[in-house]
């Protein structure tokens, strides 16, 4: 092998660099996000009515698409009422509908967004609910 020593040293440095983040964190994964939906607003509702505008699975996967559609429908088309799959109607508004129930932005939005390093700029304009310190 030509230049065997140099290649092996180079490979070792490469492996060291690649594995550094894993070794540095001690092989442990960061704590998984645990978003909370136990706000006083939600808990005060009767158990049967504790439902988001769509199913939990849909909201988990599609909330960004839904919010994006909502903003276009409201601002650009002037349609403000959303009827979900069950026929229930909602006023399409992040600030006035979503955050009325999910009044714990830090635990409900930020927890996952921080974990996945997603930085939506919603809160540059929309006012986050004033969280009650209990």
């Amino acid at each position: 092998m030509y230049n065997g020593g140099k290649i092996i040293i180079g490979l070792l440095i490469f492996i060291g660099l690649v594995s550094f983040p894993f070794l540095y964190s001690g092989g442990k994964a960061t704590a998984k996000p645990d978003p909370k939906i136990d706000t006083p607003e939600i808990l005060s509702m009767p158990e049967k009515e504790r439902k988001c505008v769509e199913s939990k699975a849909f909201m988990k996967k599609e909330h960004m698409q839904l919010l994006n559609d909502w903003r276009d429908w409201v601002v650009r088309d002037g349609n403000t009422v959303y009827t979900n799959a069950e026929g229930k109607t909602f006023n399409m508004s992040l600030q006035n509908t979503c955050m009325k129930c999910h009044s714990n932005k830090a635990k409900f939005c930020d927890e996952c967004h921080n974990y996945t390093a997603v930085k939506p700029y919603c809160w540059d304009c929309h006012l986050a609910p004033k969280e009650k310190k209990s």
Partner: protein
Amino acid sequence: MSVNRREFLKIVSMSTILSLGGVVSISSLKNHVEASQISRNAKALTAKRWAMVIDMSKFTSEEDYRKCIDACHREHNVPHVTDNPKHEIKWMWTDTYEHAFPGNEDKYLSEKIKHMPFLLLCNHCENPPCVRVCPTQATFKRKSDGIVMMDMHRCIGCRFCMAGCPYGARSFNYKDPRPYLDESRENPEFPTRMKGVVEKCTLCYERLAHGLLPACVEAAKEVAAKKGITPGLIFGDLEDPNSEVRRVLNERFTVRRKPELGTGPSVYYII
């Protein structure tokens, strides 16, 4: 089996067309399902073209104007920037006759009109130059009711619209507006803006959608009720011959700001 160039191109183009067709049919189906789920609020106020008449005789003191401006700026969390006049944000403001109606001034204009503050706001033009110059369609005219809207999500802050607007009705957020808001007076129902977007009067589209009149019109009603007169701001549908606005326009002589520019303002003044 060898494939010659002609056959290869045939296969590639056919498969592209087929796959494109598949994508289009899936997305249109999705749109169909979603479109059936949204509607207007049944209580919403509707018109073919919203317009306003401002009866200057009904405003007698500085406070009367201030009440309307305050109602608007409070409703929409408009920051009160005072440290640099160029950074001022205004949706509704007052100015003198010679600034509001340039070209109409007269050397011997009555002192009263010369010094009278005129209540100014976005004119929601029929042919808005700001919409024509906006590269992202962040400002657009709603076909349904003629409101010249701002989509703050889409504004890239290029300020072409400010150059295009002949009425100076648009303001640019040079700084983050949040520190200039009084937290105790902010309206939790309406967003603020961020640094780097243009904003202006939207004729309270969010209130109209819920069946409410614009904030300034309501404030003017309160002012008038105190004095026992009819309100100075008259709001209604310009295309409806039976509307309040058309009745007033029929009875009184009105002027518009810079009509010679051909923008077709929807705000009329009775002097």
